């Protein structure tokens, strides 16, 4: 069972990278962690259609205005 992603070393590494390279101002702040969660849940799936579809849906669900 996956641990909470915020505990993971990888998430820490990603967050450290985000400090160096901040997101564009219009990028929803939660996007990165939500994309990470999708990729974490689908990391062992060979068929990538589902994860790609979920990322697209996630992006479309955000307010970009």
């Amino acid at each position, binding site marked *: 069972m996956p641990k909470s992603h915020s505990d*993971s070393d990888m998430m820490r*590494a990603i967050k450290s990278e*985000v400090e160096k390279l901040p997101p564009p101002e219009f990028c929803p702040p939660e996007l990165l962690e939500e994309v990470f969660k999708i990729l974490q849940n689908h990391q*062992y799936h060979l068929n990538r259609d589902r994860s790609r579809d979920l*990322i697209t849906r996630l992006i479309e669900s955000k307010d970009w205005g």
Partner: protein
Amino acid sequence: MVELLNWTSYRGRHHFNFYSKSGLNGYSIFGENSRGKTSFTDAIQWVLYGEAWTKAIIDSNQTETKKRRPIVSADETDDPLLNVHAYREGDFDLMVKLHFDHEGERMILTRTADTDKPRLPTDKNITELLFLHNKTQDTKHQGGEVQIFIDTLLPKSIRRFFFIDGESVNEYRALIASTEENLEIRKNIEDILNFPILKKGIQDIISVKNQYRTLQTKLASDTKKNRNLSEKIKKCDIEISNIQRIFDRFEDDSKIAKSKVSKLESEIQDHSSSEKLMDKRKGIVNQKSSIKNSLDSLYSRRKSENKHLWLYFLQPSLQNKIKEIEPKIAVSSELNHNISSLFNKISHLQGVILEDESPCSQCGAKPHKRDEKGKKQDLDKIKFMQNEMVESKLQLDSMESIKILFSKIKDFKNLNRIKEIIKIENNIGELEGKLIELNDQENEVERLLDGIDEKTVAKLREKLKKERVSVGYLEGNLLRHQKLIDEQNVQKSIHKRNLIGSDGSVESDLLLRKIKSIEWLENIWNNVIYDYSDKTRELIQSRASETFRSLTNNPNGYHALNLNQGFGLRILDSNSRPVASPSPGAQQVAAISLIDALRQTSDIEFPILFDTPGASIDQGHRNNIINHFWSKRDVQLIILAHSGEFRPDEVEKKHVKLLAKTWELKFDDNQNTTTIHPRVI
């Protein structure tokens, strides 16, 4: 809790209940060889992945071979999953059930083998069924979706880090440094370290970015199209505005003209009685003109008829003369007939004499051939008829003047025009009467119109006529321009309908924001991939070294473990030099240390099932391993040990503060089944 039904050596129903109020995570299942320890771990792997394997056998070439265990077989050496005794006795029910908590919800995962009971089943006619019951939400699932769920619990590719077999150290030898990298195990390590989040993730992010790029290209094309359409719409608007201006001007002029018409109509209304009289007079004049024309024609006809009027008076004498001449005319006609008949006869006889065989034109008979006497008679006849014909002609000539007279008199015989003349006279009288009447009416109208300024009225009428023409012209122009405006509006609406969304600028901006954000994610992922592998390797190396030092009996003899880029493992001696030939015990401890470090670094939480952890290592290492793993509070560790490596009493006594539960497995020869005996509860 793990429930088993006819699972390998477990004949009938059995269960292990791992629930403990102690909060401890140390579990142990003791048992001699072939008592069902490995079968227990196989049961958990089967319920998760639908497969179980025999232990690896190493041949003389150090090659490991293992085979997949069949579900059913009557032969014990095949290691079937269905208990052999149950199978032999016709009991084909096979089931493994796992009760567990996941994200605060109680789950029951069940895998069964569905058999065709009346027949002795083989693996070919057995269907495996997989069910998941979420007891908290009371939802049930089965088949493929359950398997997908299992993949999120513990992906198959990394199970080797959670189902550890101490007797199969060779499986982990590849973890120990060698010149050749073991690609499969390296991939498994990458999997457990969640590298797919980065490696597969970056492909996903790029794929999503490309989808949006495609959209952007399409939108750009749409925007170009939209821009053209917007230009056209703008042109339509300008055109409509221009036409509208002209329309408005015409409308203003039309209003003025209509107002003038209305005013003139009102003025003319005051002269309506005079106008009526003038119209009446006009009508009278027209009627008079028409009657005069008719009269002129009648006068002319009467004059012509009067010329032949004398014939009327000659009619009686003409009739008498005709009566007198008619018998002579009849004689003349008879003479003509005789002459014609004589002529034909003469011609015929002349032909006969000349031996012409043509038939007679009168009777159609062919002539007899004449002898000389006959010919002479014929000639006499001809002479006689010729004389007769001459006489008739003379008589006819004498009647020629009578024939001419008759023909002239006959022309006048039917010229009775008197009735026609009377009719004309009547018409003339009637029309002349009407004319007088109209003259009277005209005089009356003239009298009524006396003193009225007819010119003013006529001028008004003329003016009104002109203004009406003007209104007509303006109305026509209004209609024409309205039609032009309508046409432009139709064009405009067609262009508007073809517009995609708006003019595309808003969509384009939003799309650009999305793409920039995805590109930012891509950059983050790329940067993390670049150095996360190294950092993780260093972290695992550090964690594995720490574990190794706590597990080894000779912490001063070893400095650390070293991991190369391919996660190959080396044991470094106290001088930080690689140990050339580490002992099997050291290798196993190093492998266990690495597995533990990988598991710690991974984000997967799953109980560890450590089968015969003491194989290849001495008692000191065994105690260290138990101490190390059972001390961990974050994960359940189930050790499956045989008495050769761990004595249950000693272990339970020594690690009483770490143990949650222990069991001992025995075999009941009477029942032909493994029996489970709880020890520490």
